[in-house]
């Protein structure tokens, strides 16, 4: 029995063909980017399809040492600094906020905060950034790292992941701690946070990946390229006249490689976390 459930050979070969073909098509842009970063612009023009660079030279990375009058190292440091700090801030603020909203959903004002947040994430993000410019101006944060980091701290996926996790903590666990005379601060630091370590790691990882990719708010809040990150530098280099094609590809590699490696290193956690956070929303 079960004849049409048992895979037949031809169908199986076809499935592998489709899956492999599609996967290679999805991966090809990465390979082309990588190879192009090591080939002189002229060589790419004459043979765009070459699968391996003529010579393996890293000189291009020193040639793009300055972009738009700013050292390449500045963009790298900015990317690391802004992404790390906004991730740390976002994780702490979102965890505490989601925890409070889950524990006391009926406290006066709390549902207002929650709705305010939900409306914000429905607003077309790119169009939110524009009035944020005015807000940053009024707060005197324009052109500052603080303004960029504060704006990048909150995100929907992060909030939903924490909210979902805190909702699943059984009431009995918390009640037992209350009966034992624990204060709310003790419940948080000794009962809830130790349980929340894995979800915190997941949220931190995903936030890092998402914030590394940010560009528009950083471009809008910045007053000069001094606070640009790698993606913003890449965009301005791509819009410049006179194409330094090889340089653009080298910068694209620098922008992509760190997060691609981080993702491959922690792929299970990232994919499961993103699916879980989305299912809640």
């Amino acid at each position: 029995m079960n004849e049409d459930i048992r895979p037949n050979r031809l169908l199986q070969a076809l499935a592998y063909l489709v899956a492999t073909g599609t996967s290679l098509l999805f991966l090809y842009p990465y390979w082309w980017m990588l190879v192009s970063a090591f080939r002189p612009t002229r060589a790419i023009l004459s043979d765009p399809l070459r699968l391996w660079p003529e010579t393996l030279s890293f000189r291009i990375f020193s040639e793009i040492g300055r972009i738009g009058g700013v050292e390449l190292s500045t963009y790298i440091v900015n990317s690391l600094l802004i992404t790390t700090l906004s991730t740390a801030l976002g994780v702490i603020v979102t965890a505490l906020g989601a925890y409070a909203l889950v524990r006391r959903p009926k406290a006066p004002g709390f549902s207002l905060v929650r709705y305010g947040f939900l409306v914000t994430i429905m607003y077309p993000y790119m169009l939110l950034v524009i009035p944020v410019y005015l807000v940053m101006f009024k707060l005197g944060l324009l052109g500052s790292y603080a303004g960029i980091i504060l704006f990048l701290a909150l995100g929907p996926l992060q909030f939903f992941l924490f909210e979902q996790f805190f909702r699943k903590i059984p009431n009995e666990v918390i009640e037992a701690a209350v009966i034992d005379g624990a204060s709310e601060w003790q419940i948080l630091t000794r009962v809830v946070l130790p349980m929340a370590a894995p979800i915190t790691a997941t949220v931190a990882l995903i936030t890092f990946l998402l914030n590394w990719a940010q560009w528009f708010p950083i471009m809008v809040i910045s007053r000069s390229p001094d606070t640009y990150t790698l993606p913003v530098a890449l965009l301005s280099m791509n819009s410049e006249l006179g194409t330094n094609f090889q340089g653009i590809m080298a910068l694209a590699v620098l922008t992509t490689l760190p997060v691609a490696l981080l993702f491959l290193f922690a792929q299970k956690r990232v994919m499961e976390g993103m699916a879980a956070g989305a299912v809640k929303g």
Partner: protein
Amino acid sequence: MTDVLATLSRDRIFYLFVAPFAALTILFGVWPILLSIQVSFTASATALRPNPTYVGLANYAAVLADPIFLASLGRTLLYTLLSVVANLAFALGFAILLDSRLLKRGSLFFRLAIFLPVITPDVAGYVVWRWLYDRSFGALNAFLTLVGLPPFGGLSSVDTAMLAILIAELWHHAGFYMIIFLANLSIRDRALEEAAHIDGATTWQRWRYVILPQLRPALVINSVYALIQFLKTFTVVVVMTKGGPSDQTNFVSYYAYQLFDQARYGEATAMATILFAIVIVLSLTAYRLGDREPGQ
């Protein structure tokens, strides 16, 4: 009154916990949205002054009478529809393939290959695609020429620009919808399929009447997410086309941003409010439709 005070003191520490979250939400969410709505009722030239001139609905009237905006809105809706369908169809198809018993090995590799673009910074991904499509540098046309096919117009042709950015965006987003379908497929009730099989259901009937109804949650979530995603398409336009050629990819987000750049704040924010309303109405509709029990 004493009740309220008692609640407040017992909950005081929770107000402390929520305070930073609330502050960031208000400062960088609620306030800018209200500011944007307020600006949409003022004359652009006075919008940023302490006492702006209020013009009522004039900006909305101007926007709705602007043929470029109407064309842009139409293209945005068309692009959203095509993208939602293409992305969900691709993601569902690939998820089914990965979930099937046909692929015994290598399933993780395929999954990683499709998901990697999701975490790739969109600017970097779109920059690479922009040059892949390029007529002189691009690998795509070089390949088509090599195998003797006619060249693809890519971003420079009026007929293909929208398709070109749709493909690039599918590359970037589809992996996300795929893992949601995969998560849903993994928690489905396989006993039902066995039962249907024993009852003599064909493969098609099993998919249509047993599996697909169980995928309703993922379909609803993905539709809502994809709608919101593609209605506000922006980055790909900035990187690849700047709205061209001949406004073919000048979607509402990008058009509003251009007006803002020209200091036409009133009209830009009026457009933002209109797009916001469309996002809310469409996603609530999708959610309602999907949430309704079949046959109701």
